[in-house]
């Protein structure tokens, strides 16, 4: 009964969309990388770096959108490093990705300690505030859930639409998808597989960093260690769950976030009082694994995912 009450409350769905936003952004980023044939395990660290960079920029006096741009540029920098090692040099995407995650995370923490050596609790910034879209936000339930979010969330939804249009309706998208399916065909067309893949990884990494920045600039207003807390790995699972399609991945992110929002609320009900809180915290991770088991059999994996392409090699 209590659970039903939660599920029909508008504030619950508003929270679900808020929790979904960083996942949506980073999942789109990973999806673009993987569609071009590159697994980017740098995602977790790039989100940490983006969370710090955006917040730090605003803390040092820039505007909020400039902060978002700074986060994106920092993410693209790590994307450049990742793509340089995995695309032209064709190094193991697993190893490079984990290396980039370690490098991005540790350099973020290093920079944090250098920038704020004395502080015990990190300073707050004036974060993005909810903006109620006129008329639409008056719709019952839906209005509060979807149209009373911060502009950063609206940007995330717009980016899903843009990614989808780019992938399926433009020559560029065709080239990106082909680079992940049959790079030799792309090369035969006179296009550079290297350039397409590197571009996809760099742009995708920018999206991941924006996902991280949402945490410090919209969901919260401060930077904490461990704040990304495995969200990047969840996004890797969401790409598989969404079968490498933007719309399905968006749906997966919202479902996951709804489940996450639900476990937080059930913890506070009478039902949650008798169960150790760790069980609730585990539930989203277990759900991700179960979801993967259900979809993996019929997943349409890009054929050339994780296959390096070396021109002249047949």
């Amino acid at each position, binding site marked *: 009964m209590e659970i039903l009450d939660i599920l029909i409350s508008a504030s619950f769905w508003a929270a679900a969309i808020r929790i979904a936003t960083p996942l949506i952004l980073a999942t789109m980023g990973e999806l673009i990388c993987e569609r071009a044939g590159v*697994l980017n*395990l740098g995602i977790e660290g790039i989100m940490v770096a983006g969370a710090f960079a955006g917040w730090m920029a605003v803390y040092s006096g820039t505007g909020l959108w400039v902060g978002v741009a700074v986060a994106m540029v920092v993410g693209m920098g790590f994307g450049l*490093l990742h793509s340089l*090692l995995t695309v*032209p*040099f*064709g*190094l*193991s995407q*697993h*190893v*490079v990705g*984990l*290396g*980039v995650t*370690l*490098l991005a*995370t*540790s*350099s973020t*923490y*290093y920079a944090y*300690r*250098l920038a704020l050596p004395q502080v015990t609790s990190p300073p707050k910034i004036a974060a993005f505030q909810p903006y109620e879209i006129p008329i639409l936000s008056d719709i019952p339930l839906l209005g509060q859930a979807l149209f009373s979010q911060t502009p950063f969330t609206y940007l995330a939804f717009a980016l899903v639409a843009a990614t989808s249009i780019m992938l399926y309706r433009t020559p560029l998208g065709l080239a990106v998808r082909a680079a992940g399916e049959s790079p030799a065909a792309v090369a035969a067309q006179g296009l550079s597989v290297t350039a397409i893949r590197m571009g996809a990884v760099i742009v995708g990494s920018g999206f991941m960093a924006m996902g991280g920045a949402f945490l410090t600039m919209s969901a919260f207003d401060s930077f904490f260690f461990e704040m990304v807390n*495995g969200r990047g*790995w*969840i996004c*890797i*699972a969401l790409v*598989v769950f969404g079968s490498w399609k933007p719309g399905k991945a968006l749906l997966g992110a919202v479902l996951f976030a709804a489940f996450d929002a639900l476990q937080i609320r059930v913890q506070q009900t009478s039902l949650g009082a008798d169960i*150790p809180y*760790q*069980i609730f*915290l*585990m539930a989203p*991770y*277990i759900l*991700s*694994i179960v979801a*993967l*088991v259900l979809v*993996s*059999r019929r*997943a349409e994996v890009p054929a050339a995912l994780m296959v390096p392409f*070396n*021109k*002249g090699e047949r």
Partner: protein
Amino acid sequence: MRLEPIANPSLGRSLGPPALAVAATVVIASLLAMVAGANPFSVLGLILKGAFGSQFAALETLNRATPLIFTGLAIAVAFKAKFWNIGAEAQLYAGALITVVLGTGALPWPSFALIPTLMVGAVLAGAVLLLIPAILKTRFGVDEVVTTLLFNFIFLLFISMLLEGPLKDPMGMGWPKSARVLSEARLPRIVDGLRLHWGFGLAILCAVAVWVIQTRSTLGYEMRAVGLNREAAAFAGIPVNTVLVKTALMSGGLAALAGFSEVAGLKGSLTLDLSPGFGYTGIIVAMLALLNPLGVIVTALFVAGIFVGADSMSRAAGVPTYLADMMLATALLLMVLAILLTRFRVVRD
């Protein structure tokens, strides 16, 4: 640009790039320390002094290397067969968990019976934990990277739950900490009076055993074949899925021994900070060793040296301790590139 294989690499070709990678790592670390206000020319010296400068420091480095040898071996075994086990952290805790569950009084046995039992128990726990992702991969085609990564989070929460519940030490003053294992369960020191326990000896033994299995047994041959080319291995009649499951069992068991050795040899009890990421660092250890089990011993000492040395350097020079992680990440990325360049040359189109 394009990569062209080199038929007969010269000595300079084989040694030059890795040497440059090490040198570049030291230079980058020195510059980073300079940004933090330290004297860049003192960095390397301080790290070496902190890691190997005294008997105490050297023993500390050996102690730190012990769990890294186990997790490094776990990763080396798995990656050789291209089974991407990123969950050594969880398997380490599985081994530690069994050690405290059975070692704190459940089995009131003398050392010669208790210690081997705990070891076997730990190995089984780690193996079973990695068996789940392995079966999900071979049966359902679920990517093991994601499942093993997520298992780390799930299993650490599980441990946290146990440490605040049934395993909580009543004498622990409210800290989430298990009771201490019996003195019969403690690994003795290798040399009396020196702070180095037999976990280190066990780690060396395991490295040799893995090397023998990899180079001298049918299973080792099959694992290599599966890692080189799964389709070709299947075509040659190798039961690929069975080999992957055996690989997973071995890898999980080795990682769990790290947890056993940390509890029984060093800490005596289980806490949530038993491992500062030994499972993840094992990936760096294994990659730097080119997945060679004997090489893992050397690279584990190198990585442990950076950790212990950079810790002491950070304190001496007032540099944030995250410098050690940055050095390792830089070393890893530069070294995989350097090793590629020992076998290929870059050609302009």
